[in-house]
């Protein structure tokens, strides 16, 4: 933690970094905060591991107003995956975002069922093993098609269309959203038209979801959203050898014309 504070302090006072996004304890509650050179003393209130926030999404909001700002972010494994994916999708400038890594504890990793509970390098914590949770998926894959349909229609039927899943998702960076499209999804009903509402989101997440689990944690109806998106991630990995959140370069298989199955990325 001291190394983390020091690293941030040095970058703010000596380096080119204008601000660092992290969590601060405010009245006993952690919330996002932009640490700056002018208020170095705020760093005493920096916390890590107190709560999960889509910090990358908050950073993106700040950078939307000032694309060239040189900012840093205190990032767990999931935050870094989100940053990489946002850079790959040309939402963030990778040259301008500095990651101050934090490795999660094994308790945190198992609470999150995290596929990679550490960023590429870290200033705080120790690397612990990933927790792979395919139990939910395996169980569903073993059911008959009819049972799976029953299952998902029941789950989708619980949705109150609060948009919490979309709003918390660090990968939902679009400024207009298909889920708001009246021509596509009938408005004025709860639950929203099913299965289309959830399947549209699932399709969009296929080559984007970084498996952070924030959507499922946010859903007031307890819909196993992460399992659905995990499946879509797996589909894209199996079919095209592409997994979101690993590299900041290149295009996802559904983002370019040309063949992604048999050869090199073709065309544009």
């Amino acid at each position, binding site marked *: 933690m001291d190394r983390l504070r020091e690293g941030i302090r040095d970058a703010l006072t000596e380096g080119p970094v204008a601000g660092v996004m992290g969590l601060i304890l405010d009245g006993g509650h952690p919330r996002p905060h932009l640490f700056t050179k002018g208020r170095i003393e705020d760093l005493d209130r920096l916390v890590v591991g107190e709560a999960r926030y889509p910090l990358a999404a908050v950073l993106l909001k700040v950078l939307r107003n000032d694309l060239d700002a040189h900012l840093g972010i205190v990032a767990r494994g999931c935050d870094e995956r989100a940053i990489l994916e946002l850079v790959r999708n040309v939402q963030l400038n990778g040259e301008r975002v500095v990651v101050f890594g934090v490795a999660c504890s094994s308790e945190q990793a198992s609470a999150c069922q995290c596929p990679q509970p550490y960023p590429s390098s870290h200033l705080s914590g120790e690397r612990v093993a990933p927790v792979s949770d395919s139990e939910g998926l395996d169980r569903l894959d073993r059911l008959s098609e009819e049972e*799976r349909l029953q299952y998902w229609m029941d789950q989708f039927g619980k949705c109150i269309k609060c948009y919490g899943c979309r709003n918390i998702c660090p990968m939902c960076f679009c400024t207009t959203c298909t889920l708001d499209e009246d021509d596509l999804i009938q408005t004025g009903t709860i639950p929203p038209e099913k299965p289309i509402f959830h399947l549209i989101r699932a399709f969009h997440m296929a080559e984007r979801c970084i498996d952070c689990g924030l959507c499922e944690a946010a859903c007031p109806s307890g819909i196993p959203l992460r399992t*659905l998106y995990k499946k879509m991630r797996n589909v894209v990995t199996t079919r095209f050898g592409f997994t979101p959140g690993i590299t900041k370069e290149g295009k996802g298989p559904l983002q370019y014309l040309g063949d*992604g199955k048999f050869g090199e990325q073709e065309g544009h």
Partner: protein
Amino acid sequence: MCSGRVSPHFVLKAFQKGADGVIIAACHLGECHYQKGNYLTAKRVDVLRDMLKFVGIGEDRLRLEYIATSESDKLSRSFTSFTEQIRTIGPSPIKRKEFARG
């Protein structure tokens, strides 16, 4: 219309409206008027079929066929065989009463 214009949203909307099956006709690979629209379609259809299977609607309700403008016989054969296939699978479950609301 190039098959690359067939957004996955159109396919999902068709199923939402109660379509029993959806067939997409595309030019042969390498013969797309817009060069590579059909490659994208092929990839999307693969992902959509996997998704339809996973949520229990069934992957065989969606089919992609490569049919050139000159192949009217293939067009009719494909549509006939797809219709037969859908008849065997039966009507779409989405419009079932039990799924209607809530």
